[in-house]
């Protein structure tokens, strides 16, 4: 499968501080790749290097097969959408006027504005002046702007950090639509539920290095303790090993009609992150 991003041995130093060291990963075309880690772990630095806003100290970063530093050309910019924590909007203009500017810059018809505003549930507010918007609405407008031009590759830095659950769901639905259309999404987040919901593969970043990289399902299985929890009719819970002894115990509970529910004891991505890094996400 074609790789859209290829990073090898990437390192970034700020003065004497190491932001990234020996980071390597590949992002395949059409996948949603999650870059997970606590604040200050190097997520935003990676996005900035991959979007030519920052030069790496060492290593290689290729996007669409060209060095990330070459992405300043218009033909590449048209393929990329970026949402970072410092994506600004023109506060004296309306939502519509803000998006119209970007339609013109990306040579996209203005009819696209209503489509993206539908995706972020803001169509009715398009005449509102940006300075009057709530933090959540601002976040949704900047998101709408990021995928206004139907980019092939979308960088999202904490895309739902300021959103309530209803609007978060709207965004997830919009991102799923983009994924169905073949958009590759590079997502940074410290929200493990978001990563589980959206990502095909995730990388755990901690103190500038990747500690784990795989699909959420594979990671959960890898770190599972291979036991099952059986909830019994009397309200008690029994933990059963997967094996002949566990099968016999399960048979006994079931034949006595005591079983209310059974579930496997897989860890969440958050549990795995804490186990691997010894750090909590914040």
């Amino acid at each position: 499968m074609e790789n859209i991003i290829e990073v090898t041995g990437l390192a970034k130093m700020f003065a004497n501080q190491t932001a990234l060291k020996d980071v390597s990963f590949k992002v395949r075309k059409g996948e949603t790749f999650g870059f997970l880690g606590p604040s200050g772990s190097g997520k935003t630095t990676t996005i900035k290097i991959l979007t030519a806003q920052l030069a790496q100290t060492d290593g290689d970063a290729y996007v669409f097969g060209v060095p990330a530093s070459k992405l300043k050309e218009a033909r590449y910019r048209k393929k990329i959408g970026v949402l970072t924590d410092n994506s600004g909007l023109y506060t004296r203009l309306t939502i519509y006027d803000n998006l119209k500017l970007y339609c013109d810059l990306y040579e996209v018809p203005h009819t696209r504005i209503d489509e993206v505003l539908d995706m972020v549930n803001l169509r009715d507010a398009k005449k509102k002046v940006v300075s009057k918007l709530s933090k959540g609405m601002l976040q949704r407008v900047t998101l709408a702007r990021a995928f206004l031009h139907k980019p092939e590759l979308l960088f999202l830095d904490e895309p739902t950090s300021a959103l309530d659950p209803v609007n978060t769901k709207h965004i997830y639905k919009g991102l799923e639509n983009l994924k169905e259309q073949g958009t590759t999404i590079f997502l940074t987040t410290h929200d493990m539920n978001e990563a589980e919901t959206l990502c095909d593969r995730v990388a755990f970043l901690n103190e500038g290095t990747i500690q784990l990289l795989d699909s959420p399902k594979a990671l959960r299985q890898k770190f599972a303790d291979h036991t099952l929890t059986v909830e019994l009719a009397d309200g008690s819970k029994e933990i059963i090993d997967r094996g002949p002894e566990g099968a016999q115990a399960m048979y006994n509970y079931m034949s006595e009609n005591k079983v209310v529910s059974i579930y496997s004891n897989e860890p969440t991505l958050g549990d795995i992150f804490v186990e691997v890094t010894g750090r909590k996400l914040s």
Partner: protein
Amino acid sequence: MIFSVKRTMAIFQKDYKDILKNYFVSSSVLMPLVLAALYGRMGVETVNEHYLIFNMTFCLVAAYVQCSLIAEEKEKNTLRGLMLSPASTLEILGGKSLLSFIGTILVIVISAFLTEYKPENILVISIAIVLSTVFYIGLGTVLGLMTKSVMEASVVILPFIGIFSFGSMLTYFADKFPILKAAEYMPNSQLINLANQVQTGAGLLDVWFNFAIILAWVAVIYVIVVIVYRKRMMD
């Protein structure tokens, strides 16, 4: 490299809509006009008096408005959005300069009307005014790129307003302080010198040296613009 007029005009239209609601910056456009109206009533007799208003217009409209527009883009993190778009450096800076350029030319034309300035050679003066406007827009762009907020830009530009509005007067004291003779080579002094020559019948070829000096200032400031802009593209 392809230059997109559409992208340039989109940035210009955005700036136009934005500045109409930005009273802090847009009110500065009125100051030279008020001064021109006052001078017009009092009666302007010398070229130097006309050009005091014109040089103030360059500083307040071309340089200050441009500086504020760029500084605000930086303050609100919107410049990064433009830089990450397909718009090239030339399209972004061209689009952002167009409003200051049109504003400056309009204010100068109205001021000239109010003060009843009638140049002997309109072509030479027009070229000189356009070149000077381009220089001051470059100056405003550099200062805007180097500052972090509109407030900071408003302070940083003050000495430049002083130097480029009234700096030509320093040459009056050049006999006493020879170092002040250097002020003759400033673009504002050159413009006044050129305008005085034109009023005595000089043509385009007679004032080539003044043009050359103003052009040198334009070249230097735009080299600085490109260097600073490229630096600002990266964190």
